[in-house]
C-alpha cells in the first residue's frame, strides 16, 4: 500500500531548451527528430564545433547585471514550472529551491580578472562577478518566484541536477518544506567550451553517443525545474500528478578525477540502489535515458554498467541518449533528462539516439535508434554521471493519483 506521506510526486515541470520554452516544445521538437546541434564558430576566436543554443529568451522583470545567463535560464524555467501549478502562494513561499549549475556566473567573467581583479571590478565587473557563486542560481529562482524556504546549489559536475532532485526528495521526506523546486541550469560560455576543448573531449561534429565511431561530446545550454511534493500534499490540493519519483540513489566511483571506472561499477551500484528503493526489478524498467555523452570512456563504462544491472532481464533494456539532440547541458542535463524520462512514462514515446549507426555491442541493451518507439512504459530510469566519479539515478512512474485536472 502506498504511504502518501513518503511518496514523492512531480506536480510541475518547467523547461528552457534549444527547442524553446516549455515541455511541449521539447517534446514536439524531439519527437519530430530535429537535432538542434549546429556548427558554431563565433563563441571565441579559434573555436570550431557543434553546440546547441537557446534563442529568444524573454525579458525578465528587474533584469540587470546581477543575473548571469544561467540565472536567467533558470528563472524562465522556474516560471514555466509553477505557471500551471495552481497552488496557494503561501505553500510556494515556504518551499525550497535546489538548483544545480556548473557554470553559474562564470559566463559573465572575463579572463582579465586573473591579471588585476580590482581593475576589472572597477571597469564594471563587480556586479557581474557577484553572480559567480553557484548558489546564485537558486537565489535567482527564489527571488523571481518569492520562494523563501531553503535555497541551495548542488554541485556534482554533470550529475548535479539529478542529485538536486534526489536531495530535494530527501528534504520532503524530512518534512522540511511543503514543496521543493529542483533542477539545474547552465549557459554556454567560453569557459566550459575551452575547458572541454583543452581536454580534447569535444566532437567538432554532432555527437554520436554509444556509436563505435563516437569522437566526443557537444555542449548545449538550457534549464529544467521540477516541482516536487509528497503525494499526501498533492492529493490534499487535488493537484495534477505528472509522475511519481519512485526511487533515487547517488554513488561515487572513487576511481579517478575525470575518468569513469571502466566496468561502470559505481554507476551499476547506483542503478541497483534506486531500484531497491523503488522496490522494482530490472524487468520492470521500460526505458533508460542514458547519460550517453559520446565520449569514448563514458559510453563504454555506462554500457558495462547496463550489462551488469540488466543481464537477468528477459529482454534487453531499451536505452537511448538524448544528448544527441541538443548536446550536453552539464548542470541542467540530469533534470532535462529526468523530464524526458517522464515524457516516456506519460506518453509511451521512446526517443531514439540520433546518428547511432554502429552501436557498442551489448547483450543486455536494446539501443533505440532510427525512429520513435511507441509502447507502454510503466517505469523509466534517468541515469547521470560526472567528473569526480559522481553517479545518480532517478526512477519515474506514471502518476496514477489525483484527479488529473
Amino acid at each position, binding site marked *: 500500500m502506498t504511504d502518501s506521506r513518503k511518496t514523492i510526486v512531480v506536480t510541475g515541470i518547467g523547461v528552457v531548451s534549444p527547442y524553446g520554452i516549455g515541455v511541449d516544445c521539447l517534446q514536439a521538437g524531439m519527437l519530430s527528430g530535429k537535432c538542434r546541434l549546429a556548427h558554431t564558430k563565433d563563441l*571565441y*576566436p*579559434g*573555436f570550431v564545433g557543434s553546440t546547441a543554443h537557446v534563442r529568444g529568451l524573454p525579458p525578465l522583470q528587474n533584469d540587470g547585471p546581477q543575473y548571469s545567463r544561467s540565472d536567467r535560464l533558470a528563472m524562465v524555467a522556474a516560471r514555466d514550472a509553477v505557471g500551471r501549478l495552481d497552488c496557494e502562494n503561501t505553500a510556494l513561499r515556504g518551499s525550497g529551491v535546489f538548483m544545480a549549475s*556548473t557554470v553559474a556566473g*562564470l559566463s559573465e567573467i572575463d*579572463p582579465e*580578472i*586573473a*591579471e588585476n*581583479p*580590482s581593475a576589472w*571590478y572597477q571597469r564594471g565587473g*563587480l556586479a557581474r*562577478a557577484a553572480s*559567480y*557563486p553557484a*548558489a*546564485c542560481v537558486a*537565489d535567482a529562482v*527564489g527571488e523571481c518566484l518569492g*520562494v*523563501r*524556504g*531553503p*535555497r*541551495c*546549489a*548542488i*554541485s*556534482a559536475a554533470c550529475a*548535479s541536477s539529478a*542529485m538536486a532532485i534526489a*536531495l530535494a526528495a*530527501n*528534504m520532503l*521526506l524530512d518534512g522540511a518544506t511543503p514543496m521543493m523546486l529542483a533542477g539545474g541550469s547552465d549557459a554556454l560560455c*567560453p*569557459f566550459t567550451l*575551452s*575547458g*572541454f*576543448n*583543452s581536454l580534447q573531449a569535444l566532437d567538432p561534429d554532432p555527437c554520436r553517443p554509444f556509436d563505435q565511431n563516437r569522437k566526443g561530446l557537444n555542449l548545449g545550454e538550457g534549464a529544467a525545474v521540477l516541482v516536487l511534493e509528497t503525494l499526501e500534499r498533492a492529493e490534499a490540493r487535488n493537484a495534477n500528478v505528472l509522475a511519481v519519483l519512485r526511487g533515487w*540513489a*547517488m*554513488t*561515487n*566511483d*572513487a576511481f*579517478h*578525477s*575525470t575518468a569513469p571506472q571502466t566496468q561502470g561499477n*559505481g554507476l551499476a*551500484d547506483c542503478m541497483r540502489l534506486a531500484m531497491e528503493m523503488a522496490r522494482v526489478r530490472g524487468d520492470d524498467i521500460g526505458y533508460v535515458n542514458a547519460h550517453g555523452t559520446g565520449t569514448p570512456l563514458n559510453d563504454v563504462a555506462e554500457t558495462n554498467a547496463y550489462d551488469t544491472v540488466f543481464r537477468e532481464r528477459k529482454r534487453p533494456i531499451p536505452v537511448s541518449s538524448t544528448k544527441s539532440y541538443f548536446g550536453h547541458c552539464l548542470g541542467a542535463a540530469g533534470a532535462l533528462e529526468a523530464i524526458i524520462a517522464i515524457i516516456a512514462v506519460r506518453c509511451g514515446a521512446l526517443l531514439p539516439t540520433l546518428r547511432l549507426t554502429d552501436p557498442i555491442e551489448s547483450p543486455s541493451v536494446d539501443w533505440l535508434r532510427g525512429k520513435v518507439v511507441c509502447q507502454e512504459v510503466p517505469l523509466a530510469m534517468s541515469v547521470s554521471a*560526472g*567528473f*569526480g*566519479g*559522481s553517479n545518480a539515478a532517478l526512477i519515474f512512474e506514471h502518476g496514477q493519483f489525483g484527479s488529473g485536472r
Partner: protein
Amino acid sequence: MTSNLAAITGIGSVSPYGTLAGLIPRCALEPEPITAWPTSGLRRAFLVKPFRPASVVPGLKTRRLDRLSAWAMVASSLAIQDAGIDLSQEDRSRVAVVFGTGLGCAELTEAFFHSAAAHGWSGTDPSPFPEGLANAPASHVALWHEVRGPNVTVGCKGFAGESALIQAASLLRHGQADLAIVLAGDTLTRAVYEWYEAAGLLSPACYNSEPVTDGIGFVPSEGVAALVLEPAGRREVRAYAHFGSGRWSTDGEAVETIRQMLGGAVPSITICAGDGAPCATSDTSALAGETSGTSAIVPAQAVAAGLTDASALLHLILALGSQLPSGKALLLGTSGENGFAALLLELP
C-alpha cells in the same frame, strides 16, 4: 526504534587556528598580513598557515590540486582519525561525503582564467579545468578514502556549512549512508579578497593592526572543517554532540522555525551565535526573551575566525570547545537581511 539523532564522533580542521584533530583549543586570533599576492598597503585576513599536506597525512599527494581539495583531504583524514574509525572495517559503499562551500575551487578557477588571458581561450591549460569544479574537493576525499557512497557538494549564500550538515544527517536518516564525512570550507584568493574590498565589505581591521571589532564589515577567512557523523548508537564511542535537526531559510521567521524544530515547545535552551552578529536580530532576541531564566546567550568565540559562507562547521567546533552546559543547544546563523539558519544539538 531508530533515533533521528546523528552523533558527531570525529572532528578535523585546517583553519587559521592550525591543522588539528579534535576540538580547537581556546586561543586569541588576530588577522595576518596578506603576502600571497601584491596589495596596495597593509591588507589582513584570517589565513591558513602554509603547510605540507603529506607531513600531516603521510602519503597524501596534492600536487596540481586546489588548496581547497588538499585541505578537505587533510581535514577529513584528521576527523576520521579522531573518530577512531578504521575504514577498512567499514562498508565503503555506505560512506557519504557532503561538502559545503560558498565559492568552490576559486584558486584553480582563477588559474584557468589566467591561462585564457595568457594564451586565449583556444590555448588554455587543461589541468586546472576539472580540478576547478566545485565538487573536486568532495571527489578527492572519496578517492583518498576510497568511499563510494553519495558524494554531494552544496553551496548556499551564508549557510553552506549548515546545509551540508543537514543534508548529511538526512542521508543517514533515510538509510542512504551509514556514515557521513561532512565538510565545509573556502579558500581566500586575490580575486575574492579584492571583490570584498571593492564592494566595501571589509572591516577596518583588514587595513591596520587594530583588533577586530564587531559590527563594521568583516575580516575574510579561509579553511576547511570536517566532522564524522553517524547514527547515534551505531558504535560505543564518545560523541562530541548529537545533531538533532536543522533548518535554514532565506526569510528568517526564526522564532516560528525554532518552535517547529522543537516540536512546538520552547524548552531550556542555550543560544550560541554562530558568527557573532546574529543575536542582534529581532527574531532571535525575541526567542531569547521567551526562554529567559533558562537560556543563555553565548558570545561567539567564532567571531575571531572570520566569516565565509561555509564557516558554520568551524563555528560549531569552536562552540563545542567552549564548555557549554549539557542539554539542548541551538547554533544560529544569519545571512543578508532575513536569512536564518538553526542547528539543534544535544550536548553531553
